[in-house]
């Protein structure tokens, strides 16, 4: 199937409607802001969830205070 085949399915009026129509600057702004906000929010949330889900720091022997030196 080619592009030409797919365009041939449209009436002349519909084709003209579509060819004369485009994404305006206002559309670009709304689209970028809407998608940017949602993608930004989701990315921020996932990063926070991943960071907070890291296992807690495991303490090595050197960190453990045995209080041996105390009298």
């Amino acid at each position, binding site marked *: 199937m080619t592009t030409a085949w797919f365009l041939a*399915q449209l009436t002349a009026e519909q084709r003209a409607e579509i060819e004369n129509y485009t994404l305006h600057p206002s559309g670009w702004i*709304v689209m970028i802001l809407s998608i940017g906000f949602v*993608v930004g929010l989701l990315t921020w949330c996932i990063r926070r969830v991943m960071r*907070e889900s890291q296992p807690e720091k495991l303490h090595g022997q050197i960190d453990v205070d045995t209080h041996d030196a105390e009298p």
Partner: protein
Amino acid sequence: MTELPRPRDSWGTRIGVILAVTGSAVGLGNFLRFPGLAAQYEGGVFMIPYFIALLVLGLPLAWAEWAMGRYGGSRGFNSAPGIYRVLCRTRLAPYIAFPCLLVPVGIFMFYVLIEAWCLGYAWFYLTGMMSELGEQARNGMENGLLKEDVYTSFFVKFIGMAEDGASFNLSRTSALPFLAICFALNFVTIYRGLNRGIEKFCLWAMPALILCAILVLIRVLTLPNIDAGLGFMWNMRTEGESFTRQLLNGKMWLEATGQVFFTLSVGLGVIITYASYLRRDDDIALSSLTSAAGNEFCEVVLGGMIIIPAAFLFFGFGVTERVGSSFGLGFITLPIVFEQMPLGYMAGFLFFILLFLAAATSTLSMLQPAIALLEEGLGVNRKASVTILGFVTLVGALFVLYFSKDATALATFDFWVGIFFIYVIAMIQTVIFGWVLGVDKGMAELDRGAEIRVPRFIGFVLKYVAPLYLLAVFVFWIYTEIRKPEEQNTLLMTLRNPVGLMSVGFLALLAVFFLLIIAQASKRWQQLGAVSDAEVRA
């Protein structure tokens, strides 16, 4: 501390809970209703009330529901009646919670059918039946356009809209086998429990859903002249004075608020149950926000970029006449679009699989609130509770399937449990959070274990703004429903149509069934001392 003698389920991982809640929220509305509304209301202008409603109503309500759920869960209750009992400390409170069971179970009864339709269409794409249909439509081409009647009559026959009982057949295009598969999938998964069933299913189903959506999105975005389609979806089509008039369109604000409200699954009775299985110090603030953000990603990014831009390329501005009905858009308009699109059968298959997964992750969540009540209210094990619920929902689903003429039973169920009682639950919950539990206590609950700090003004929003906002939207909705012409008026249909009346009667019986279980549960909790212990801890 008296623990109710029953097996207590719990979540396995945090990602699992987030995906389960996101899966519950993501449904057909994300991919069909939202883009339809945006196209109907001048594309870009719609996004202004939509995002305001999300920030002012949607997110605060979700936070409140998560907080109340975990509050009740940490005091030993997972069912909404038990949680309300702890929150309100009155004997009547559990009875007020009956819509939290009626709504999800009632919605399940018709949503599982829609899930079956999606699975059926995916199967038809896979087995070549849709290409046969395409051939018929091409043979009857008029003015260079595919014969639409072929798709309409196929859908009408598939869902049995012509007459009652028409769906009860075993022809090649019967919906019955798909309904059986969906029922089995739901009940096998729910029987396996929260962690091994719902969570495991959502852990693979949600990424699979997003993958399908991205593949379809790539196909759509690589269509010739796609910027025209994107323009139709996102352009602010009015300027100057007419833009202001459009922005002040009350109906658009109502629709945007309703969409936000339904898409986040708040007021459904599901989140409160899901959150009750969290531990006392688990984070809910960030998890709730992540689930909402995941849902918005599916709605705005994936839902907003696929069907309307693609449909515009094939129907031009005529697409606005097709967005009023989500079913018409999804099951008649889109197959015509896929038929004319290069690689359209593959895109069609992926799209209906994605709708099926979206519906399946939602229906799974709808059973858990009733399972929780049966387990902790009657003390029965999971096997028995799943069996009881399986019987009840099967009767309901067969009722909706049988009375399929003009989809009257489905429309009546959707009107009462899919819209009316959801508003009722949301209003009850905002009042409980803001006025009964109290904002200070509620916000303290939200802050416990929180990994982000929820802004303090959310308390004010939940106490004053949200109940009034909800009430205004609810009253406006009732007003517009009453003023609708007779043929579209569901309220009148309920009163005048025998099937509408029977559907309301069926829902009333279901409500009585849950009220009786709540009565039994309340007695049991009192006898076991579970309520007094929980009140001490409260």
